[in-house]
């Protein structure tokens, strides 16, 4: 492609954007709003993902042992558990250790249980699986082993959590796909109007022998510019807003482990730009198709 052609394409694209000022403004606004929602949703999704991961990592199975179990039987059981393929780690917690832990958490409230025979707790195993999703299955297996009084892993909570994060992911993807499609459609319509306004020009170009790509490029560049500007604005907004949100959370909700801005913002900016440019370019190609016949 000739350099003077490139200059011509950009000049034509800019001229058209300026000439159709309001329309250009409208389509940039549409892309901006769409990508702002999209970007916020991505950030939300990343953080939900991170928080559930954190929770998942903390979930473990607690197995309470029968009281009359001898030391060697406890050891046998421990070996049986560690040999389950999904199991990562088994920790033995004696009832004395459990009591001490409780006392360090609750203090005075549980004083006076140290004497022999007064400790109401049981010896237990704390078991971690290699992946959190295996917990329900492992818990079921453990229930069938002899010498185990009770298996506890917060059944409901864990299963609901897994179902919830799965749903969030799919709904999020569908939602984002829908938004991107809407933006594509709107840009295509905007460019279609600018193409319409220049139908005569396009026809003359065809009659004097302009190639199809020569006719297309200014419109594609126009779409790419509109999409790109439409992506840059929400990227800047998110950059600023997310920094604020993370700073605020650090002070007010310090236990909520948000993903640090520097880890996500660059890739989100790139992604938004890519989406904006693709939507713009694709939108104008789609709206050009009809006009290039003849």
């Amino acid at each position, binding site marked *: 492609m000739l350099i003077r052609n490139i200059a*011509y394409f950009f000049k034509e694209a800019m001229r058209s954007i300026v000439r159709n000022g309001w329309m250009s403004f409208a389509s940039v606004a549409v892309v901006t709003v769409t990508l702002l929602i999209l970007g916020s949703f991505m950030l939300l999704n990343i953080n939900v993902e991170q928080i559930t991961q954190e929770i998942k990592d903390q979930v473990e199975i607690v197995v309470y042992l029968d009281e009359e179990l001898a030391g060697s039987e406890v050891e046998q059981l421990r070996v049986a558990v560690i040999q389950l393929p999904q199991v990562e780690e088994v920790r033995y917690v004696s009832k004395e250790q459990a009591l001490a832990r409780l006392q360090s958490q609750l203090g005075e409230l549980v004083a006076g249980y140290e004497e022999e025979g007064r400790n109401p707790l049981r010896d237990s195993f704390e078991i971690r699986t290699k992946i959190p999703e295996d917990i329900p299955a492992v818990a079921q297996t453990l229930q069938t082993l002899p010498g185990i009084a009770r298996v506890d892993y917060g059944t409901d909570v864990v299963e609901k959590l897994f179902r919830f994060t799965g749903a969030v992911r799919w709904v999020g993807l569908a939602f984002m796909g829908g938004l991107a499609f809407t933006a594509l459609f709107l840009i295509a319509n905007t460019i279609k109007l600018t193409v319409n306004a220049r139908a005569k020009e396009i026809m003359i170009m*065809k009659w004097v*022998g302009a190639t199809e790509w*020569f006719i297309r490029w200014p419109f594609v560049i126009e779409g790419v510019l509109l999409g790109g500007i439409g992506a840059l604005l929400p990227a800047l907004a998110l950059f600023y807003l997310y920094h604020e949100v993370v700073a605020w959370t650090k002070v007010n909700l310090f236990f909520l482990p948000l993903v640090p801005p520097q880890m996500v913002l660059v890739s989100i900016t790139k992604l938004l730009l890519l989406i904006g440019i693709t939507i713009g370019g694709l939108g104008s190609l789609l709206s050009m198709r009809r006009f290039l016949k*003849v």
Partner: protein
Amino acid sequence: MIDMQHVNMVYPNSVGALKDINFSVERGEFVFIVGSSGAGKSTLIRLIGREFLPTSGSIRVFGKEITRLRRREIPLFRRSIGVVFQDFRLLEKRTVYDNVAFAMQVVGASPREIRRRVPEALEMVGLAGKAKRKPDELSGGEQQRVCLARAIINQPSLIIADEPTGNLDPQTSLGIVDLLKTINIRGTTVIMATHAKDIVDRMKQRVVVLENGKIVSDEQKGGYSHHAH
């Protein structure tokens, strides 16, 4: 230069517009296509410009079968023909100069070449002094001259014109046809569809008469009056 063999054209939902047309034009000829309204003149002109394909038959232009041109070959083919329309089709927002330069820009001519050739073409059509005007500041005849300058700017060897004087008064029309004749004398083949009886009679060029999609007469140095209405 142009050779049509057994060309039939049937538009969708319509009777045949052209029926078994056999017709050829040599390099350097000036040909009028005449006939009553609906006879098929425009259809013939548009087929030569490869605006659409005939229903059947062969159309060779510059020795090339244009019914078999690939899509991306069409622009290159169009560069070798100049087209003049009844309704001028100028860009209202651009000056006379830009309207002509535009045709060079879109085929990738260099700015130097454009600066050299556009004034030449405007000079040739007698508009040298009006380069900076917009189309709506010109008379109809002048607008058609701009259109002619645009048609010749890429130095085509063939010009096709569909009623180029259809919107002009007789005196102005004569000026346009004289200009086409001048272009023709310099070596460009011209095919022009028209209803302008006086002009056809006066020019003494080849006249092809169409009637209901058929060629009913084809005479060198013909006239309009004996045939059509």
